[in-house]
């Protein structure tokens, strides 16, 4: 559905007319990201990251398909073929650095996209389904990135695979058989490398499929906006094209400058030197750390250092790490405040900026640090806050908080007054 004032697609070119009659693909695009999609007129640059995430997904698929043409998923030669790509394949070094740093940028923009959602409670009705699909995309991204990091078959690849699959070993009774089943053996080897390659190639296309559902679900209620006030009339919206295509175009330019600055001048900055050492099952690295985008959750995993009654510390850590993400699925039903935007929620806003953001920063830092004091104790305090924030503070705050007054409409928020509203022209909000 769309707003009643959405422009209709009217092809004039005979080819487009023919196409529109037989297969209305141009109409679909026009209504999805063209002039046929009315968008709130007050979106800030924080609303750029969805489009940027889409861009980096496509970039990862393109560079990844090229890399797969030159890579061999065999434990004997995987490391050597990666070096072959770096040294002998024409522009192979660029493809590989763009792919490795592209994963990092994909996560950067997705994290900003998610935290935009936290602050503006984008997960609230009527957008629950968009949020749920978004969390699914994030989980798929994590699985894909983890398996991709195993493929160069360096030391961190091997030991990362061992540690992460080892998490399943913490499950009582069935843990060990599950771990062996996942790896196809007792330790990561050819069987694991092959299936990780197969799945690493498959999952991005699954992500692309869920992204289509995510966008489809978005087009039912339309985009949220920084005031959190729903669209009421035509003056609240602007057509996606040319307004937001232009704004996203500028945002993409800035993102690409940062991305290519990293690719060309600091391509290994976000990586770990140990992954330039070929995998060696007999030599354990001093510190096994995952890629930076897993650090906050890795810190939560390692924060549980003591058995809790009958639950072993390791199992508790695994449960907490998975719960830390899975609890996002329940946010639409935990945060019942009728006001969406953090701009108008004084109490929520304080917990967001002085609670959640510092806690995430501490978890991020500690996740990349060695498992020693004071990092373990810091991450324990931050972990406690993380769970309190989402599962205790958010439900209670949404109950007791007194929100600040909202603008009548988006138009009023942007332009200072909503003349049609004053005249009573749009008493019925658009559905």
């Amino acid at each position: 559905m769309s707003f009643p004032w959405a422009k209709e697609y009217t092809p004039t070119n005979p080819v487009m007319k023919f196409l529109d009659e037989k297969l209305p693909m141009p109409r679909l695009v026009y209504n999805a990201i063209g002039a046929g999609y009315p968008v709130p007129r007050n979106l800030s640059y924080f609303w750029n990251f969805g489009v940027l995430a889409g861009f980096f997904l496509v970039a990862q698929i393109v560079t990844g398909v090229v890399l797969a043409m030159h890579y061999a998923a065999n434990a004997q030669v995987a490391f050597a073929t990666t070096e072959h790509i770096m040294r002998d394949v024409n522009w192979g070094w660029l493809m590989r650095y763009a792919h490795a740093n592209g994963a990092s940028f994909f996560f950067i923009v997705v994290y900003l996209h998610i935290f935009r959602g936290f602050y503006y409670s984008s997960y609230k009705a009527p957008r629950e389904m968009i949020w749920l699909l978004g969390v699914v995309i994030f989980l798929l991204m994590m699985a894909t990135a983890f398996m991709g990091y195993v493929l160069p078959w360096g030391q961190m690849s091997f030991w990362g695979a061992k540690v992460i699959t080892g998490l399943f070993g913490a499950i009582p009774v069935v843990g060990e058989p599950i771990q062996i089943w996942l790896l196809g053996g007792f330790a990561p080897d050819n069987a694991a490398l092959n299936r990780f390659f197969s799945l690493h190639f498959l999952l991005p296309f699954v992500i692309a499929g869920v992204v289509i559902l995510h966008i489809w679900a978005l087009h039912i209620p339309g985009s949220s906006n920084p005031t959190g006030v729903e669209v009421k009339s035509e003056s609240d919206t602007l057509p996606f094209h040319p307004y937001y295509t232009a704004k996203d175009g500028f945002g993409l330019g800035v993102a690409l400058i940062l991305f290519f600055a990293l690719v060309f001048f600091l391509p290994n900055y976000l990586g770990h030197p140990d992954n330039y050492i070929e995998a060696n099952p007999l030599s354990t690295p001093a510190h096994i750390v995952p890629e930076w985008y897993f650090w906050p959750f890795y810190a939560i995993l390692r924060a549980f250092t003591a058995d809790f009654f009958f639950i072993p510390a390791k199992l508790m850590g695994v449960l907490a790490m998975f719960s830390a993400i899975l609890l996002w699925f329940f946010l639409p039903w935990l945060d019942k405040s009728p006001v969406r935007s953090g701009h108008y929620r004084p109490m929520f806003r304080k917990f967001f900026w002085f609670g959640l953001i510092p806690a995430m920063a501490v978890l991020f830092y500690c996740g990349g640090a060695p498992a020693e004091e004071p990092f373990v104790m810091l991450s324990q305090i931050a972990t406690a806050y993380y769970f309190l924030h989402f599962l205790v503070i958010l439900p209670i705050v949404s109950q007791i908080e007194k929100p600040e007054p909202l603008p009548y409409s988006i138009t009023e928020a942007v332009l200072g007054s909503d003349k049609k509203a004053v005249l009573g022209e749009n008493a019925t909000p658009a559905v």
Partner: protein
Amino acid sequence: MSKLLSVRLVAILIGLGFTVAVLWAFVSGASAVISEGELKPASAEHEFHEHPNDYAWSFDGPFGKWDVQQLQRGFKVYNEVCSACHSLKYVAFRDLEQIGYDEGQIKAYAASKQVPGIDPLTGEATSRPGLPTDYFPSPYPNAVAAAAANNNAIPPDLSLITKARHNGSNYVASLLTGYREVPAELKAEFPDFALSPTGHYNPYFANLGLAMAPPLTTAGQVTYDDGTDPTIEQMATDVAAFLTWTAEPTLVKRKQTGWPVLIFLLFATVLAYLSKKQIWAAAKRKDD
């Protein structure tokens, strides 16, 4: 409403459960710290480990370039010193063209090395003179031989060594010049500290005891063709530069490609910003 309330009630209970569990871990960790009186036991490896020195490299920075003379000197050091124990398996003889050797020189150099081959008449494993397309041969036939000849410490392949260590170029140069006697302060502070019987004290190495004996011991160990004075530091930095090239032969090309890409993007982004501004000008006070 009562159903929704129960969702939140369950969430609050789970949230408190995780909080209590992690704070329980915190309390047990904190009590251990208090009873020991320190956050982390002091260790010689922690206190006497040193970060690599900063050397001025020609390839540093966004405009970095190879110093071809230095790479050739470093290659000579590798060839005459390091190659006795360390392989360079991802580098082919033909690659030497990139550091200024011509085809004839490369052919002659390759032919001076024996690489594994197969006797065309009998099919038996043998060795033959190298060709430019061959890769640098390993000094040992296999890992077992390498371990046996080196007190079980296999000399690592050096192709990627500067990328496989933090701050790799500085690390290699610092390590090669870093050998010394165990400092008296260390002995005073940690009387129990003992190097392994095959270890050599080197503060740049993570556990301070490096299995490799000092490879560069005297000035002039390698004779340079370009007249540079072969001090130990000179040889160490030259070979570190050479190993930076072997780790990433495309390093300079990468930086040189980066500039036009960034300049183009900067230009395109300014244009994108201006067109965004122009398009959005129409949206200000549209309802007037």
